[in-house]
Every structure is written in structure tokens, then in C-alpha cells.
């Protein structure tokens, strides 16, 4: 398994030009389902549910294209306000104590930090990492209480993952514009003047 991963990492380093393929293969190696589209993940508890494939923007993936051994960026272990090239990210998650490397793996940039089993978490399965801190929300989400599902109430459902509703860097929802209010009923005065 580790040998396989090492060769894959090596292959990625060699084929930097083929950025897109590397992302798909890198994530596919872990999730056992390389095909895009709804993948099936057997989460703990024996419940299978479809996980929509939600690729990261191609401009920033694969992360290893920059954060690979050949570029050899220095790893910043401490918080830094300026996020250098990641100017689109405004980190607003858990106050000032949460930092990039609290979720992203420093060594394996294509993955997220592992749970206690040591297996790196792919971006597709980020909800496993979210559940590490947000345990009660994770439980509710798995029970269908938190979050959103579409599809069939008695059949296949599409699950909305944490990161499809919440921006992981800025999880709080931003206010949105409401749809217009209903029309007020015409008052007797108005009605009499109109006729």
C-alpha cells in the first residue's frame, strides 16, 4: 500500500504537466472509485450513501504541483495572516486558533489530515475530518437532521457534503437577499378608490 502511494507520488512529480489527471487519480486511489460522478462511500456504521463528486478548481489543484518536493516550499507551522498566492481565501474558521495545517496535511498536500487510523482523507471525504471537531453536527448530518438531502424520501438520496454548503475556510453562511414579500391585500379604502 505504502509502496503504491510512493510510486504514485513519484508519478505525480514526473507528470506535473498533466495536472488534471493527477488530481483525479490521486483522489481515486483512496476512495476506490476513480470515476467522476456520484461515488459510493462506505462510511463507518455500514451505511452506504452517495457522495457527489465535487472537484476543486483546476487552478489550484493538484496542490502538490506547488507544494511538492521539487518546489520545496518551506512549511509554515505557525499562523500567518498573509496567505501568499491563496489570496482568494479569507480564513475565518474557529477564530484565530485554526490554521491551514489544522486540516491540510503538511506532507501530503493532496490530502487532508488523517484520523486516528492514519489514512489520509481525500477532499471528497472531507466530512470525516469535519466530524473530528464537529461531532454532534456530524452525527446529526449522518442521521439526516443537519444539512440537506435531495432525491427520494424512500429511496436514493443525494447528500450535500459539509463543504458544499459551508465554505471550509469561512463556514458561517453569509446573508442572502430574500425573495419579494407577498402582496398586501388591498384595503377597503384602496379598493373603493380604484373602482
Amino acid at each position, binding site marked *: 500500500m505504502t509502496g503504491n502511494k510512493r510510486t504514485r507520488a513519484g508519478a505525480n512529480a514526473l507528470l506535473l504537466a498533466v495536472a488534471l489527471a493527477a488530481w483525479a487519480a490521486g483522489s481515486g486511489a483512496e476512495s476506490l472509485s476513480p470515476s467522476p460522478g456520484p461515488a459510493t462511500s462506505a462510511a463507518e456504521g455500514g451505511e452506504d450513501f452517495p457522495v457527489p463528486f465535487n472537484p476543486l478548481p483546476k487552478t489550484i489543484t493538484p496542490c502538490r504541483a506547488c507544494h511538492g518536493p521539487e518546489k520545496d516550499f518551506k512549511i509554515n507551522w505557525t499562523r500567518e495572516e498573509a496567505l501568499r498566492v491563496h489570496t482568494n481565501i479569507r480564513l475565518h474558521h474557529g477564530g484565530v486558533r485554526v490554521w491551514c495545517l489544522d486540516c491540510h496535511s503538511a506532507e501530503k498536500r493532496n490530502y487532508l489530515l488523517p484520523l486516528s487510523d492514519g489514512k489520509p482523507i481525500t477532499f471528497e471525504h472531507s466530512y470525516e475530518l469535519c466530524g473530528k471537531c464537529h461531532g454532534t453536527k456530524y452525527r*446529526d448530518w449522518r442521521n*439526516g437532521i443537519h444539512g440537506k*438531502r435531495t432525491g427520494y424520501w424512500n429511496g436514493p438520496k443525494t447528500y450535500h457534503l459539509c463543504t458544499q454548503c459551508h465554505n471550509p475556510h469561512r463556514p458561517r453562511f453569509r*446573508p442572502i437577499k430574500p425573495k419579494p*414579500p407577498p402582496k398586501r391585500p388591498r384595503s377597503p379604502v384602496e379598493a373603493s378608490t380604484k373602482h
Partner: protein
Amino acid sequence: MSRRKDDAASPSGNDQQTGSGTADDPKAAGGLEKKAGVSRRRFLAGTAGLFGMITVSSCSWDEFFQQNFRRMTREEIDQTLARLQAQYKAKYGKDFVVGAEGPIDGTLFGYALDIQRCIGCRRCVYACVEENNQSRDPQIQYIRVLRFRDGNMDFEESDLYYDPDRVPQEGYYYLPVQCQHCENAPCTKVCPVQATWKEPDGIVVVDYNWCIGCRYCMAACPYMGRWFNWADPVIPAEELNTRTHYLGNRPRFRNIVEKCTFCIQRVRKGRYPACVEVCPVGARKFGNLLDPASEVSRILRDKRVFRLKEELNTQPKFYYFFGL
């Protein structure tokens, strides 16, 4: 008033008169004869008029003599659906699917809404309008989103017409109200013609063709969950939803009552209602109350829930819960 009083006061006197008085009294005899004559003439004229009305009006013979949906045989239902499809094709120029799917065995639908999540954006209101072919003008919207000040639960002080730039606003919470699909539904009890009833899967429906438009049900409903078509509904043709159900979102007409049906045309096929699917914050939950693994059952088990106006013993199947 006085006549009734007389009748009540002297029933025996009247009886005596009928024996001796009517035959002899010319006035009384004439009255009787005249009455009989007019009533025959009226009967004939009325019948002719009725035939004429049916022929002249848009209402077809079949439609006029259509049975209450619950008393129709399978054959009659099929004929009705075919007739409606042809009628809608002629009126709107679109191919409609008018279904009459029955309840799924072992289901009792329930709904749960997380009032700590709802942000009052009214997406559900408009998704419902589009899914259920509600009239745009005059406006009919099955869902009312009420805005309350934090800590206040007085409906009189809630605001239906809030219109800020952005929601949610600080210091407010939002409570959408629609038909609560009561187990003990007062609206179905007051209907003088039994045009509205609770289906076996718990959905309260209206047979629009049987409704006489008396609006007793609207008076009986404590949740303002019913709407009356004061005028012919106006819907842009391109916005018509052609996947319909007889008891649900098929096009309606003037002078009848309509209401939320949990999107009967969707849920009877296993799909979620439109409002559930559109909610951007996932505050709306729908499922089978009889299935212990359904989302709604889990919410009832794990979360704090309440229903509106429980003291009225209407037993709504629409639960509000606190998700946090």
C-alpha cells in the same frame, strides 16, 4: 317569522283546517292549484335551462356529473384524468400528465422544520408556487414566512411582509407556516359536501371539482393554511408545471379552495416536496413517520420539537424543531 310562530302555536288547528277548510275554501284551493301548476312549469323550464347551461357553458356533461373522487371507480378516474388532460391541452397547449397515484402502504407523512436554521429567504415560497401551479395574480402562496423578534412567539406581532436587503437579520427569527396536515383536521369536518379529506397517508387534500367554494374550511383552519381562488388563476404558460396530480397541482379554477398537499404529485412517487429540495440551509425535513429510520422520526426522537396551537387538539403532522 310570524308565520312560523303561527304554525308552531296551532299545529292542531291547521290539521283541522286541512280536512274541512281546503276543499271548501276557494282561496286555499286556488293557491294549491296555482302552486302545482307553477312548479310543473318551473320544473320543465328548469330542466331545459339546466340542459342549456350545460351545453352552452364550458362545463362538459361528464364534468357536470362527475362524482366525488373518493366514490369514483378506477374506470371513472381514468376517464376523468383523460378528459382533464385533453381539457388542459386545449386550454394551455401543453401535454399534461394528470396522475392519481394512491397512497403508499405503510406511510404517514410528517414534516419537520428547523426554526434555528431558517433564514427567512422565501425560496420555499416561490419553489412551491412554481411546483404547484399557484396563481400569480391574484397571488396565492401556500407558505407564509413569518418574522418574529427574538424571544417573541406572538403571531399578532409577527411580520409577513418583511423586506430587508439581506436575511437573516440580527435579532429576528423566522417561522414558515403552511398547511399543518392535521391528523384531527378541523377543515375536513366542516366541509358540507366532503370535498376535502385526509388521505390514508396523512395528506389533507381537496377535490377541486367537488368543492362548492363555501370557504367553511378556511374559517375552520386555525393555521390559515387554505386559499380561495377569488378569480381565474393567472399563470404564465411557460411556467406551468405539467407533471400533476388530480388531488394536487393540476390547474385550478375560480371559486374553489386549494392548499398545500406536501407536493402529493412528488411524494407519492417517493420524491421530496419542492420546498424541501430548494431550502438553501437544509431547514426542511420530510419523511415517513411510521419508519423509525426516517429523518423525521429521528428528529422526533432526538430533538426538541413543538407544534403550532397544540391546545386545539388538531394534532398537526408538521413539527418545528431546534436543530442545535
